């Protein structure tokens, strides 16, 4: 009984962390059709921002939830102005340029922080469920992921900015027709996407050690999750994170973490073979 509860929590946690990891990339891809391959490094910078802030005496939750997203959002803004905006409409070129940027960030972080693993300890203690100890931080991650999805839905559905955003997702010239400068919309979107990446990096930082190359572990997973999700932003994100999280955890518990990771990848290949445009090109059509 206890064990099934523990496994359920682990599964929810796996799904939640996939949602967190992919959210920033999904926003940028969904709105701008830009694949930001420096996404993992944005997360890495979120992690470093958190750790640095904590070392400077900032409360860990403030560091994670406010400082890191802001810092990374601003970095994203600079990147957008300097590089990305010159490449709109050139999908492959933006991928390559952001790949180059990811290397630049790794190099910079190495020069600033060095390659030694750093980290902070988790701010929430573990607790017991029957005979088992559970990592209390897992619940925090699950809660944050749920809040994030709800917030994204509320913003898109309920605010004027969300309306413009939805319009832009449907037809990129729509916003211009409504009298909004696409330039500013893209800027704002990239800021939000980067901030989300920073948030994800910050929240995962206490769980896993941080090195400048940490981003590499996330980008592939995020990339796969977003592409497999397909055209709908939220439905795609949640549905593909759920499928992949479920598959990988089943195999992790049944066999081993490596097989779990491989199962996730194999699932991605099969899924894209069956639904070349992603899950939401077939199901949940027209949803957000």
């Amino acid at each position: 009984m206890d064990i099934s509860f523990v496994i359920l929590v682990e599964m929810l946690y796996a799904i939640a962390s996939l949602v967190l990891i992919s959210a920033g990339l999904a926003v940028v891809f969904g709105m701008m059709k830009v694949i930001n391959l420096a996404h993992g490094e944005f997360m890495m910078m979120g992690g470093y921002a958190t750790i640095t802030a904590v070392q400077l005496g900032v409360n860990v939750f403030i560091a994670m939830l406010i400082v890191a997203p802001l810092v990374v959002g601003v970095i994203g803004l600079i990147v957008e102005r300097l590089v990305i905006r010159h490449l709109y409409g050139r999908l492959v070129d933006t991928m390559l340029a952001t790949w180059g940027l990811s290397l630049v960030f790794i190099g910079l972080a190495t020069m600033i922080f060095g390659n030694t693993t750093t980290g902070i300890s988790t701010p929430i203690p573990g607790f017991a469920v029957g005979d088992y100890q559970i990592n209390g931080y897992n619940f925090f991650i699950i809660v944050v992921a749920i809040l994030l999805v709800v917030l994204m839905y509320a913003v898109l559905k309920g605010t004027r900015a969300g309306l413009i955003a939805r319009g832009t997702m449907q037809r990129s010239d729509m916003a211009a027709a409504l009298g909004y400068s696409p330039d500013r919309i893209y800027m704002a979107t990239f800021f939000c996407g980067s901030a989300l990446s920073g948030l994800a990096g910050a929240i995962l930082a206490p769980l896993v050690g941080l090195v400048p190359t940490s981003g590499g572990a996330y980008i592939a997973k995020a990339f796969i999750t977003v592409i497999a999700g397909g055209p709908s932003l939220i439905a795609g994100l949640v549905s593909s994170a759920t499928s992949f999280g479920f598959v990988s955890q089943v195999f992790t518990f049944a066999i081993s973490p490596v097989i779990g990771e491989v199962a996730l990848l194999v699932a991605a290949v099969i899924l894209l073979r069956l639904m070349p445009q992603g899950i939401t090109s077939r199901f949940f059509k027209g949803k957000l």
Partner: protein
Amino acid sequence: MSLKRREFLGAGAAALATASLLPRAALAADTIKLGSILDTSGIFDAYGKPMDQATRLAVADINAAGGLLGRQVEIIDYDTQSDMALYSQYAQKLTRQDRVDVVHGGILSASREAIRQTMRKTDTLYFYNVQYEGGVCDRNIFVTGVTPTQQVEVLVPYAMKKSGPKVYILAADYNYGQITARWIQKFVEENGGEVVATDFFPLDVSDFGSTITKIQQASPDLVVAPLVGGAHLSFFRQWAAAGMNTKIPLASTTMGVGNEHKVLTSAEGDGIMVAYNYSQELDTPENKAFKEKWKAAYGDTTGIHELAVSTYQGIMLWAEGVKKAGSLEHDAVVEALESGISIVGPAGNIAIDPQTHHAILDVHIMEVEDQKMKVVETLNQVAPVDTQAVCNLQENPDDNMQYEIEI
């Protein structure tokens, strides 16, 4: 067959090197060249940078004491950027163009294997100063790091005495981890215990949530975790986050090699049992002097770790060998080193085992306490029995392979 090949290669290589580099070799005869090949950038630089610093410190010490054979020692170093292909390239450069007298370096076992044959073909003496899985048998190489038995045979009985007979093993999924796990199993059984499960993790796994649940299902008395690298460090963090660190004791043969215990908070790290050749907390005059020299050279001592000290000791052993041989000639130095030479380094007395070209050294059992490694017990002059079981260079000087040690 392999002999024929070596002759063929050796002759050709020598001809090539002499033809292209005669003038420079003659010109630089006044210094002794020590080649250093380490990852001082890229993902392994946490290991490589202090090793590089230790190399410089050792050579500075030798030169300050008047050099070797009346000549100064010069370092020629390359940064392999954590890229295996560059090891091969720089090894060629060191041996054929720079024509160094000795090479110290290599971090991962793969990097050692990438350059070992080049060293052998060109008769360049090679020192590998890293803790590794054991079994390399090659007259041209000297290994000054600890091998699994040297740690495990000491650590496992101690840890089991403190906890209990049921042991769960979590090991890094590569050569070192696989072999170490088997030694752990052997020593657990010899001490009347039982291994309830063994799990292997590739070096990039950083999420151990499900594993921690599995361990709880098995409810062992002790977890032995030879996990390696930055990603695996998150195990110790997640273990503590789940509150397990107060319930089941941990032992490791790797935690702390790259100063990982300083990254974990004391709440996370305290109580983990380890066994190494070196700890910064060793209270010996040699260690104090070493730390002071390091501090004078680099500002602070936080960077010093096991591998850096191994590197320092490796270079000192080589220097001792050269002094004893009174020459830089390859075979003379090897014979001098095989004569049971020893030095007293920061980690205590360290001697070369003539049979295996590995090191006989002190092993300290330690417990992590407040981000430090507190020495609990010291075992003097532990021999590399694992490699001794498969390798005897006195009997087979032409041996040239890495044995998979059968347990």
